[in-house]
């Protein structure tokens, strides 16, 4: 196990002048797009995907690491200043960060978010550096039936954690699985769900799907809410930084947030929502300033922001070692891998050592750059918030179209993206979460491969999933995650205090 040797190798690649510039560019662009209202990290990656086409995979992934962190940090800036969360995991930040900004403490809120993200991101990156290779060795032992069950578990947990209705989450997920099946079946050459359209034989492009569901849908939603008064962004007065008291109140939440985000994110079942909400509730309970919660308690920004960032790094463990994305952002990264014909999974560390270790090294760099670039540049980013919504939306649609067209060179795919944009908007209006849809579409084809492999080994006997003990155990956990929240909610509704 020469993790350190590999890591040094990765740094040697990441620290080349070209890659360093790409990392700076990635962080800057990521923050630039992420700071725009309503655009979370997943949307940011979707919009910036085509830019990476021209670089070699290593360079592209260095840039991606930057975009990933930049997009996330840009999202917390919008959450704090505009009260608009770019994704579910940013909601706790809006609860405390925005009131802080309203009381003239925007500088401290932004600083604790940035420094907390840096602390959490760095600790998490160190941990995954040592954890991921080991996980990858374990992952090599996983058989198809267990692989399928793990994917079921990932789907169920992600779905039951997002939104407030499991039925709507599952509907969205299964629709995504269907979208993933469109096109020619890889194993038999049989067209499925293609309705005789040759354009559909290659399947619906996940890039068009992601750009549509995230970016186009956001634009349609802006158009639909045209008559609503715009909320003026809070101005950032005073210096960006924290007082001695802020530091004293922030450092423990940062560490606790990391302790929630990293392990939960690293499970093939996690995502970033659960740890951020957990962290928020724990900070609220532990704080000596309970009365400030809701009015701008700095602990309520520090903890969830650290948890969010730690989970984001943790999510890379199941993504790289199992090929299973557990958040919308992670599925965007998987799409990026697939564009380069790289399939994350147990063999990734053996087949693409340079790519993986450069990516991990760039996570360290991305974190440092984020802190170095963002704290001084925050005022520049904030200026972006004063661009009129009409122009921003026009620009988002322009870049969305450019992205899909430049990757596919096909007007049909542009129309597909627009279509998914409308679908995403309608689903959002009806309170169906869209993240499970994209997870289903991205992971569905891989899941079907494992499903068919497992059944091929068992010679078609479907009981293989419940007669193998490990597979059964995983499926039982999944079933508990599916039914558990419903029971808890039922009890809460009946007025029984839950533990």
């Amino acid at each position, binding site marked *: 196990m020469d993790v350190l040797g590999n890591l040094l190798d990765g740094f040697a690649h990441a620290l080349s002048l070209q890659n360093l510039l790409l990392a700076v560019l990635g962080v800057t662009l990521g923050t630039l797009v992420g700071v725009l209202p309503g655009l979370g990290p997943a949307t940011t990656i979707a919009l910036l995907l085509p830019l990476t086409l021209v670089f070699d995979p290593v360079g592209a992934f260095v840039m991606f690491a930057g975009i990933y962190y930049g997009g996330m940090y840009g999202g917390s800036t919008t959450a704090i200043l505009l009260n608009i969360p770019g994704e579910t995991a940013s909601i706790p930040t809006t609860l405390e960060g925005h009131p802080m900004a309203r009381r003239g403490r925007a500088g401290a809120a932004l600083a604790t978010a940035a420094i907390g993200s840096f602390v959490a991101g760095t600790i998490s990156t160190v941990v995954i550096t040592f954890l991921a290779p080991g996980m990858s060795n374990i992952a090599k032992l996983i058989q198809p039936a267990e692989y399928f069950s793990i994917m079921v578990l990932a789907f169920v947990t992600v779905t039951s954690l997002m939104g407030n209705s499991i039925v709507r989450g599952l509907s969205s997920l299964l629709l995504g699985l*269907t979208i993933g099946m469109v096109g020619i079946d890889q194993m038999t050459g049989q067209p499925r769900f293609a309705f005789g359209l040759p354009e559909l034989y290659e399947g619906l492009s996940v890039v068009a799907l992601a750009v549509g569901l995230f970016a186009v849908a956001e634009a349609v939603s*802006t*158009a639909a809410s045209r008559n609503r008064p715009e909320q003026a962004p809070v101005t950032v007065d005073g210096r960006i930084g924290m007082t001695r008291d802020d530091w004293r109140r922030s450092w423990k939440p940062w560490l606790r947030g990391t302790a929630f985000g990293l392990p939960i994110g690293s499970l093939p079942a996690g995502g970033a929502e659960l740890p951020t909400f957990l962290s928020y509730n724990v900070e609220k309970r532990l704080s000596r300033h309970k009365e400030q919660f809701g009015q701008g308690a700095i602990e309520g920004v520090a903890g969830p922001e650290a948890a969010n960032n730690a989970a984001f790094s943790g999510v890379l463990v199941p993504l790289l070692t199992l090929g299973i994305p557990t958040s919308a952002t992670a599925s965007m990264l998987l799409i990026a891998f697939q564009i380069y014909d790289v399939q994350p999974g147990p063999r990734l560390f053996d087949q693409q050592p340079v790519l993986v270790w450069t990516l991990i090294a760039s996570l360290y760099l991305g974190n440092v750059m984020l802190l170095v670039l963002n704290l001084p540049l925050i005022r520049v980013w904030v200026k972006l918030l004063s661009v009129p919504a009409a*122009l921003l939306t*026009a620009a988002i649609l322009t870049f969305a*179209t450019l992205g899909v067209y430049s990757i596919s060179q096909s007007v049909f795919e542009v*129309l597909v993206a627009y279509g998914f944009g409308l679908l995403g908007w309608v689903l959002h209006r009806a309170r169906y979460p869209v993240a499970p849809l994209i997870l289903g579409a991205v992971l569905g084809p891989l899941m079907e491969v494992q499903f*068919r492999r497992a*059944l091929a080994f068992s010679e078609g006997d479907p009981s293989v999933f419940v007669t193998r003990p490990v597979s059964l155990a995983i499926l039982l956990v999944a079933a508990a995650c599916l039914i558990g929240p419903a029971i808890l909610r039922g009890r809460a509704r009946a007025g029984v205090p839950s533990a």
Partner: protein
Amino acid sequence: MTQRIVSAGFLLAAVVVLVQAFAIPRGEGYQAVGPRAFPLLVGGGLAVVAVIGAVQAFRAGPQDAEEETHWPSVLMLVAALAGYALVLVPAGYWQATTVFFAVVARVLGSRKLLRDAVVGLVLALATYFLFDRLLGITLPPGLVRLAI
């Protein structure tokens, strides 16, 4: 209301998925599982959650006030998108994008047409040169190819 319509949409989708899945030939032969097992599984699951979702949506009383929707803007935006996709290749990337940018800004309430068109033109030309000339990703040139 939206929720009822969407839940009905999911029911319809479930029917289409199941019908299409049953239409896939078994294609078993030497394989234990053909191309149709997984689609049937997904279709069946979709049918179950779609029925539950529809029952929930129709049983629930009037939903809490929904967000007000400015339909004219949505429809005009859809028209602008469709038009943009249609003229993108024949008219050329930067030409179509300039017009599209100004139209979308207008649809979303901007009243400064000249400014929007100028911003659109600058953005369109900048991305055109970046992608087509520097990055080597071909974008439709339109009738008149720029000399530089």
